[in-house]
């Protein structure tokens, strides 16, 4: 069974990062975008029990096994995507938000995203002038097989172009931007529908922000490898 436990002691008042032993799956049901297959989701539950207390905290999340790769095609200049090793023809649409008053209910998200899936889309691009979408948005994209292209909060019009020409140096507080970006990544990173992070809309973020985003979001070499070599978990973290 896919169940694993381990014991550990945590010092009083301390904050630790911990890696669990990896779980092995033989031929897991792969998650596919809309139109390419099903969207099986596994429920991952992590629980911590403390001696003389009992269950202290638990966390659960739907998880889809999939590998998404993309690169810029030198011939066309367009971005090509592969999911689980298969090339995919992207049929996408722009998305800004569900409601200008931000009344973002689960029901509203489900209806909107199901509608996009029924339009035969397989990707939604969350525009940089709008929101970092909410976990409920991603939940329904997981369920309906919509890949998500998520942009950070930079636009051509407000960050370097526009009429009159705007400030190319982005927000005043670059550290705040990066703090928000890192927190947003942590909020959304486990959703199988999340396909690509992009610095902004029609504009490259200021150099320091762009460099930091690229550094923080680069794929670990372990996960780029298509070889059959098996690294130990310590190599990764």
């Amino acid at each position, binding site marked *: 069974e896919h169940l694993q436990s381990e014991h550990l002691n945590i010092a009083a008042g301390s904050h630790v990062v911990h890696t669990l032993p990896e779980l092995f799956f033989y031929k*897991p049901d792969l998650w596919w975008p809309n139109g390419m297959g099903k969207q099986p989701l596994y429920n991952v539950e*992590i629980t911590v029990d403390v001696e003389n207390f009992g269950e202290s905290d638990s966390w659960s999340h739907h998880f889809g096994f999939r590998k998404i790769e993309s690169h810029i095609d030198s011939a066309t200049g367009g971005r090509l995507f592969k999911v689980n090793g298969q090339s995919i023809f992207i049929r996408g649409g722009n998305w800004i938000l569900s409601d200008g008053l931000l009344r973002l209910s689960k029901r509203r998200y489900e209806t909107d995203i199901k509608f996009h899936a029924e339009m035969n889309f397989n990707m939604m691009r969350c525009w940089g002038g709008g929101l970092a979408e909410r976990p409920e948005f991603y939940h329904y994209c997981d369920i309906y097989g919509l890949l998500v292209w998520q942009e950070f909060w930079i636009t051509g*019009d407000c960050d370097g172009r526009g009429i009159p020409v705007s400030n190319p140096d982005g927000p005043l507080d670059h550290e705040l931007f990066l703090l928000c970006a890192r927190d947003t990544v942590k909020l959304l990173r486990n959703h199988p529908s999340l396909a690509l992070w992009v610095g902004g809309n029609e504009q490259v973020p200021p150099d320091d922000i762009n460099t930091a985003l690229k550094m923080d979001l680069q794929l670990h070499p372990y996960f780029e490898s298509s070889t059959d070599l098996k690294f130990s978990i310590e190599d990764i973290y």
Partner: protein
Amino acid sequence: MAEEGIGKRLLDRGWLAARSTEVDLTGVELTTTHPPSAEQSPWVEAVVPGTVLATLVKNNLVRDPFYGLDNETIIDIGESGRDYYTFWFFTMFECKPSTNQHVDLNFRAINYSADVYLNGHKEVLPKGMFRRHCIDVTDILDPDGKNLLAVLVYPPDNPGKIPPDGGQGGDHEIGKDVAAQYVEGWDWMTPIRDRNTGIWDEVSLLITGPVKIIDPHLVSSFFDDYKRAYLHSTLELVNKSNFVAECSLSIQVGTEIDGDICVV
């Protein structure tokens, strides 16, 4: 009052709101001696999660901005000033954790910054529309379990002004903040008068024991043409107690549909 169970509890009901300039009381007074009520002007039922403008629309204090040209009837923050859209939000909740339980008050997003008062204690939530805020409130919860929460929400620092002819992102001032930029209006959208100020995402309490799980990260790797897969998981653990916590940490993976455990 029953013992609190471990887990998350949403605070999405019973919220009130009022324009800050129409409230003479301080946050301390609102959350100790003078809690407001819905019958008491200027307090109205609030939309949480939602924006100030959503609350005003709900209470028919402004017209629906997305109906016809009604957005033109609503005063823009560039004309009114930020104070006009600086609002108090208030609610009450019951929570009485037992010994060794800990309680966090979580805001999944606020636009743009806020002062939080709980039972007379103040906490400043810093700027940024896209960040989570977590406050450990264990020690400031009411011993009887009746808690008063008030949040003073400030609009973006640079809401900008809308040029007479509109334009993409208005005067672009909103770009100085880390916030949604469409709110100054675009070719597809009228300017949002309050710039989406508000508690625009989930508010919750998280009740845990001595050890809390933070932000697990799940990643899969594949081998042998997707026949072999590994699920890698990393997480943060915080021991909030003053003793060494002897923990048992477990991960379990099941199918979503029927909750059965997958067999290897």
